[in-house]
């Protein structure tokens, strides 16, 4: 795929892709994003996805579309959760079951934009699920957990512990492994052909 042919420059880029967290004097390498963006194309297309459905060009478009939606799902999740968290810290809901506390919190701009982004997350995830397997979508979009930890380090100044780095490594490796499989392994419904 064209977007993956830039692999030669990856090594040069990695060195620059790190944020310095001033509060903790900590380098936050973002190598795992590069690993995920540069993963190789899926190894094989299952036989049941017949060639009548997809020629080579169709397959390329299909994979590019899947990749684009993965990024939208991950980004809206991470940014939406960040906005929500930031807004809710500002509002400081008193622990109560009063609905007024929630309505009041929703009026906060950070909370409102968080909710809008999470609605976008739900929509893009549903769209992705319309053509990709659940066992593909769930692990691949779990990168958002890793990015949330990194976002907390970069923007909120929270430290990332060694254990969390191991977790980020596991998530990246897992998402990479799933990402090299073909997104769809089930027979497509008639009307989708």
């Amino acid at each position, binding site marked *: 795929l064209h977007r993956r042919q830039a692999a030669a420059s990856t090594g040069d880029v990695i060195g620059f892709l790190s944020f310095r967290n001033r509060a903790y004097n900590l380098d936050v390498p973002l190598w795992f994003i590069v690993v995920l963006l540069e993963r190789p194309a899926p190894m094989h297309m299952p036989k049941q996805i017949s060639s009548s459905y997809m020629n080579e060009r169709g397959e390329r478009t299909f994979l590019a579309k899947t990749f684009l939606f993965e990024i939208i799902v991950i980004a809206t999740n991470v940014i939406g959760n960040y906005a929500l968290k930031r807004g809710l810290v500002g509002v400081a809901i008193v622990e109560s079951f009063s609905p007024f506390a929630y309505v009041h919190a929703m009026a906060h701009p950070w909370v409102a934009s968080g909710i809008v982004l999470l609605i976008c997350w739900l929509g893009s995830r*549903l769209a992705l699920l*319309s053509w990709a397997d659940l*066992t593909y979508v769930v*692990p691949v979009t779990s990168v958002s957990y890793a990015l949330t930890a990194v976002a907390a380090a970069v923007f909120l100044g929270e430290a990332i512990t060694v254990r969390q780095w191991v*977790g980020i490594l596991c998530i990246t490796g*897992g998402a990479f492994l*799933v990402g090299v499989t073909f997104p769809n392994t089930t027979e*497509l419904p008639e009307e989708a052909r």
Partner: protein
Amino acid sequence: MTALLVLLTVIPGSIGDLLTAAGMKRHGEIKDWSGRGLLRLGRELARSPNIIVGIVCMAVAFFAMMALFSTTPLSFAAPVTAASNILDTIFAKYLLREDVEWHRWTGVSLVAIGIALISM
């Protein structure tokens, strides 16, 4: 109480994922990205029982998870949310008939371990 919250987090979460995936699979790949097409899609999805019940299940799981996080230590609550990844995979394999080969099993297990480690 805690056990109930764990069950309410994991099981409706996975059932919600399963139902929304089934609903979208039944609809088929979205191809019409025009405003009118998306409007029609929205109307169709709003009438689909799979999607409605699926989203309600996801909401139940979300609020149960919030309650779990506020009543138990994080080191207990976090691995619980990772377990739903594994349950999702089992549901998808046996109910959605997805072809879950070793890449995906290994991948989803690594991701589950990673989520547990990262949020503990």
